[in-house]
């Protein structure tokens, strides 16, 4: 049973029953992961903090609807983060397309991706290469690589098949290699 192996299951059940100390412990345990995912998806620190707050509001609201047989709490939490990101995007936040944050590609749409990456610091080049990935490829990569979810957990969080996750990951990594490795030799 997933419930038996899930270290967060007892906590989320207590939250559903209105246990405030459990909610506080959940924030302390999960806030850094929620913030990291939101930041890597949207690319903006302030936006990521707003997303994190929205995510925990939804956790308090929907803790009672979490089902142990559906997904681990951590996977369920990642799904909520993605949903909040998607909702904010559809509400008019444009960071998915433009890359947002400190690296604004829209300011100069002329150069190719490879040209745009040239001359930046390594960190900025990687950031920018991530930002230029299609949203679903970026989400799959961030969930598996940075959040350390398995492909199955990523599939559950993204509500797609494992095969689809593997396809997204393969395309994302191929694109990143072309942009980050091949362009610099």
């Amino acid at each position: 049973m997933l419930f038996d192996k899930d270290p967060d299951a007892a906590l989320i059940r207590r939250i559903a029953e209105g246990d405030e100390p459990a909610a506080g412990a959940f924030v302390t345990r999960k806030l850094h992961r929620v913030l990291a995912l939101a930041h890597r998806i949207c690319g903006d620190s302030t936006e990521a903090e707003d997303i994190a707050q929205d995510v925990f509001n939804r956790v308090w609201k929907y803790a009672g609807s979490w089902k142990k047989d559906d997904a681990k709490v951590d996977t369920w939490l990642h799904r909520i983060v993605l949903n909040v990101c998607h909702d904010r995007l559809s509400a008019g936040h444009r960071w998915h397309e433009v890359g947002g944050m400190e690296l604004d590609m829209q300011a100069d749409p002329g150069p190719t991706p490879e040209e745009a990456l040239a001359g930046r610091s390594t960190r900025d080049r990687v950031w920018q290469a991530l930002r230029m990935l299609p949203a679903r490829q970026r989400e799959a990569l961030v969930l598996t690589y940075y959040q350390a979810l398995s492909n199955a957990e990523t599939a559950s969080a993204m509500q797609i098949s494992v095969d689809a996750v593997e396809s997204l990951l393969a395309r994302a990594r191929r694109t990143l290699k072309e942009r980050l490795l091949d362009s610099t030799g």
Partner: protein
Amino acid sequence: MAWDELERDRRLDALLDTVDSPGVSALLHARVMATIAPGRPSLVRQHPWWSGLGLVGAAIVGAAAGALCMSLLLAPLSNSAPPGSPDGALSFRESAFVPPTTGIQEED
């Protein structure tokens, strides 16, 4: 060739590792902690079957109110005939109503 691809994967991973994420500030932690709603959740959230119990209760109360209304409406009909009158023996279907034309014909 496979070794080259593994090396490229290793180099890509090393590059991806350069992207860090912001730490959690005390201010953000306090902001999120402030969203924790005080008090206990609703009884329905704690015990979902309570909502079903509420529906059953509402149905019982509704049925009782309907029965009371019907009894109040039907009471004048059943008590309209004075005690001992032959009309009192009429069944509900047998109306004791007499058309007024009968009286007019007698006057003529």
